[in-house]
């Protein structure tokens, strides 16, 4: 088989610009072979090289005394959690593959991030995700677009369930939004967290000249050819159809075996370096391991297990067949690899050797098909400072005024409508399809502000032999929240992105946790468009400022650009997964009200003190009831937000807080309703409890008279948390909160079988059963 000639058309087909092609030739000192062109095209894609985003990513805070492996060093960052233990975590997107084939696209997204975690030597102990789809409900008869959104949503959820459940990792947290901007371009961001001892950290380094290079895992096929390059261009109907072959097929059973075998092998000490074959498969793993170690690597493609006959070197190098690992083994210890992988009945092959040449040399059928300086291709990818220009639409956003929008005349009906809005409604239809309990550590599962996971002895990879003298693993508690809000970020990229981080930190605070660090997924449009790049730039500035404020360094993440649907770009959607630590299990707090007679308090301002209407900009209420995604979104005062979280944690630590729930989409009314209805005891067995709340006295404060009901009930002013406390502690908590510098007000009491809410000129009286049923069943009804 002869390779095609390298023409400008072929270069363009590989998504390389003429300038990049010149740079490529300069790196090689000659014209590339066809295989080399393929290698460069994936290594220099945005997905692998971050060429459009690297200057921005450098502005993230990445340091803290807890950092053991920092952002960008390896497959995932690692943080110290004390007692010799550490956690590795990361979020990663699989948007484009999920648009083309939702089930496999999402499934392999989970598989990829799980591999990133055990590649670091950690045992994967929990998963989470952040998802976006077009609307799944319609006012009238749903059209083909809604039907397609449902197909994508259902397929993605089933794919995540398939992979995570079979692998045996609990999916404990997540968030899902439905918005027309994601029609045809869903977002699928998958997160995984693993646990290990400090001494178990391994690196993706091809260390030790002469060390053999092993390939382990299933055979290489033609599936997933050049998926990384696919992810780095605009998604169109045409590209989706052409690129169906770029979607990989996952096998979670295989991944489970590969994970167990790798952790068993790592415990022997025979491994010098390990790297998963994710994006750009064999290409990326060989190149990066050599580049990191400053060595060279030589591989022989004839030795690579192959699933299809007659595969070319180009296909073998660019395949993204799943569940494969590259392992560099200390010379002389090959037998241990063979023993363990034979035990698990897994394919393995010795395919190459570490060299001192600094070059990545690939042989096939006795010929050299690629000979590339490894560090140059990995480290010297092009970097672009893209042009940024403020988008024109923001002028209209800033000029938007609520005067033309009538106040709510039926707040009870609007509350029910908001609770049934799929973005706000219970996600039980989703998380009941995920095994969220396997591994016996899910202390707080999906359905509260943040998930809480226990770390115990079997959370870390087993030591080499049971009799080893390692100190026992003390129980620890990790909290986790994933957040994002595309509408806020669209309307104000800087402020909206601060809110994304602040909400994640607030959710952690509500469970009693202190933030340790964060991982982010930047889902944006085409960076060549200056307006879209401005969104990205401003968003990163907001994320970075907020992460600094909460002492939550970014430990890694992922960029997914080129997110585009037929009618335009997606809303700019950074998603943030923040991880925190709870020192004492007694401090673990959930969001639902507990007992009759408990007093409900609001920490934070009732509404934005500078302008009560600010909470309505970009709100769920405005989107759902008035069909507008407009207005300046709520402000986020990081200093006050931080004080609020500190105060809440102090109150929780003093043992008086029985529930804590942050006010987010849908505002105070939705947060109160969720306090009444969100505890689930068992199948078809919610635990419902009412509340009596009177907001009238609070609206009589100076500057609040004549406040609009919609702003009061459904405004999304930031920095607000609902807590409930035993009545005997209420006065004490009010005083404590005041000392801690946080405005606090008594809203009412827990009890009864309805949410009774008094506001100036109106009284809502909503039976909790009605609230619950609308909220609980909304998504299932849309999907049947």
């Amino acid at each position, binding site marked *: 088989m002869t390779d095609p000639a390298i023409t400008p058309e072929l270069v363009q087909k590989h998504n390389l610009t003429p300038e990049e092609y010149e740079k490529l030739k300069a790196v090689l000192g000659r014209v590339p072979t066809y295989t080399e062109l393929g290698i460069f095209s994936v290594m220099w894609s945005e997905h692998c090289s971050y060429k459009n985003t690297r200057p921005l990513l450098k502005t993230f805070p990445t340091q803290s005394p807890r950092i053991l492996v920092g952002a960008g060093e390896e497959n995932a960052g690692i943080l110290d959690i004390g007692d010799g233990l550490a956690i590795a975590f990361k979020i990663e997107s699989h948007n484009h593959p999920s648009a083309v084939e939702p089930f496999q696209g999402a499934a392999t997204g989970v598989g990829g991030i799980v591999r990133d975690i055990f590649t670091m030597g950690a045992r994967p102990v929990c998963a989470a995700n952040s998802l976006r789809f077009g609307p799944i409900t319609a006012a009238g008869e749903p059209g083909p677009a809604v039907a397609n959104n449902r197909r994508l949503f259902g397929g993605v959820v089933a794919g995540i369930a398939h992979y995570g459940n079979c692998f045996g990792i609990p999916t404990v947290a997540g968030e899902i939004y439905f918005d027309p901007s994601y029609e045809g371009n869903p977002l699928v961001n998958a997160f995984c967290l693993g646990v290990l001892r400090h001494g178990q950290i391994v690196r993706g380094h091809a260390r030790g000249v002469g060390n053999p290079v092993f390939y382990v895992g299933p055979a290489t096929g033609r599936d997933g050819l050049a998926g990384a390059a696919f992810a780095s261009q605009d998604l169109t109907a045409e590209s989706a159809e052409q690129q169906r072959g770029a979607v990989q097929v996952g096998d979670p059973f295989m991944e489970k075996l590969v994970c167990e075998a790798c952790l068993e092998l790592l415990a022997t000490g025979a491994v010098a370096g390990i790297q998963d074959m994710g994006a750009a498969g064999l290409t990326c793993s060989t190149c990066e391991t050599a580049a990191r170690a400053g060595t060279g690597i030589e591989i022989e493609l004839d030795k690579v297990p192959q699933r299809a006959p007659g595969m070319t070197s180009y296909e073998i190098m660019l395949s993204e067949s799943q569940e494969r690992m590259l392992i560099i083994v200390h010379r002389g210890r090959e037998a241990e690899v063979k023993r363990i992988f034979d035990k698990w009945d897994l394919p393995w092959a010795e395919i190459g050797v570490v060299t001192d040449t600094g070059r990545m040399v690939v042989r096939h059928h006795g010929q050299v098909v690629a000979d590339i300086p490894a560090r140059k291709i990995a480290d010297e990818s092009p970097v672009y400072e893209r042009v940024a220009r403020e988008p024109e639409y923001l002028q209209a956003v800033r000029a938007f005024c609520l005067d033309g929008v009538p106040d709510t005349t039926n707040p009870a009906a609007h509350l029910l409508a908001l609770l049934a809005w799929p973005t706000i409604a219970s996600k039980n239809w989703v998380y009941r399809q995920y095994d969220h309990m396997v591994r016996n550590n899910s202390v707080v599962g999906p359905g509260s502000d943040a998930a809480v996971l226990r770390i115990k002895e079997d959370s870390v990879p087993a030591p080499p032999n049971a009799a080893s003298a390692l100190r026992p693993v003390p129980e620890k508690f990790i909290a986790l929240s994933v957040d994002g809000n595309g509408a806020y970020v669209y309307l104000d990229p800087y402020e909206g992105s601060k809110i994304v981080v602040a909400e994640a930190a607030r959710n952690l605070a509500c469970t009693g946790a202190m933030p340790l660090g964060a991982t982010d997924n930047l889902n944006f449009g085409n960076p060549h468009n200056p307006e879209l790049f401005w969104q990205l730039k401003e968003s990163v500035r907001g994320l970075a400022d907020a992460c600094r404020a909460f002492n939550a360094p970014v430990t890694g993440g992922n960029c997914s650009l080129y997110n585009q649907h037929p009618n335009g770009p997606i809303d700019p959607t950074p998603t943030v997964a923040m991880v925190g630590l709870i020192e004492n299990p007694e401090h673990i707090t959930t969001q639902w009200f507990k007992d009759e007679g408990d007093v409900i308090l609001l920490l934070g301002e009732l509404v934005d003190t500078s302008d009560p209407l600010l909470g309505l900009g970009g709100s769920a209420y405005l989107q759902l009831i008035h069909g507008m995604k407009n207005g300046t979104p709520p402000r986020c005062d990081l200093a006050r937000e931080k004080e609020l979280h500190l105060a809440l944690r102090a109150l929780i630590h003093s043992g008086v807080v029985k529930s804590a729930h942050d006010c987010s989409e849908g505002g105070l009314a939705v947060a109160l309703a969720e306090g009444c209805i969100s505890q689930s005891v068992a199948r*078809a067995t919610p635990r419902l409890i009412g509340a009596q709340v009177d907001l009238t006295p609070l609206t009589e404060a100076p500057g609040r008279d004549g406040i609009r009901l919609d702003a009061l009930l459904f405004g999304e002013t930031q920095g607000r948390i609902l807590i409930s406390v035993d009545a005997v502690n209420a006065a004490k908590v009010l005083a404590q909160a005041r000392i801690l510098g946080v405005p606090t007000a008594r809203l009412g009491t827990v009890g009864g079988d309805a949410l009774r809410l008094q506001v100036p000129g109106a009284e809502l009286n909503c039976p909790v059963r009605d609230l619950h049923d609308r909220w609980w069943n909304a998504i299932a009804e849309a999907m049947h």
Partner: protein
Amino acid sequence: MNFAVLQFPGSNCDQDVVHALRHVLGHSVELRWHKEASLGAADAVVVPGGFSYGDYLRTGAIARFSPVMEAVRQFAAAGGLVLGICNGFQILCEAGLLPGALIRNRSLQFRCEHIFLKTSTPDSPFTNRIPPDKLLRLPIAHGEGCYYADADTLARLKANHQILWRYVNAQGEITADANPNGALDHIAGICNEGRNVAGLMPHPERASEPILGSTDGRLILESMIAALASRPTAAG
């Protein structure tokens, strides 16, 4: 007591059973790799949940051919206690150690949630410690947990009191809504005629510590321990 917990490729609740038996209940536990032909000095065997062999072909259909299953057959034939949980239940049915089969949930979706169980009889080594009116709140996590058997088999199960647990609602009533997978006659777990082999879809090992929200699962494991303790000698 000395428990053997089987480990197939794709088992993923093996460590959870080990945790509950060893760390929560304080018994000795050994993992048995599926290629082993002996169960060692086990007093009882637990076949844990997971996706043995990736559920390929049919749940449990490949695992039953593993060498260790021959040892389990002999152990059971000699009267040894065997408990299959979730995928373990599926494997025991495929192996012919329990009657009937587990098919796809009627919803066609995987289900993970807490359910309530009513114990039909205390007369088994798996139920002897469960108070008569006690409802057990246990988690399920399965895609293929719909118990099915032909009419003759079902009649025999009833006649011999082999149905150990049924899905009920919070009031202990048998209702359609309380059945999470469409199981025949709301069956969640059964035992064999000899009453020494049992299987159930819910996960007792996931409900054995207060911090995980329920300790009801301990009653099932403690029933086994009580049964073993009252035997003159260990089986097998």
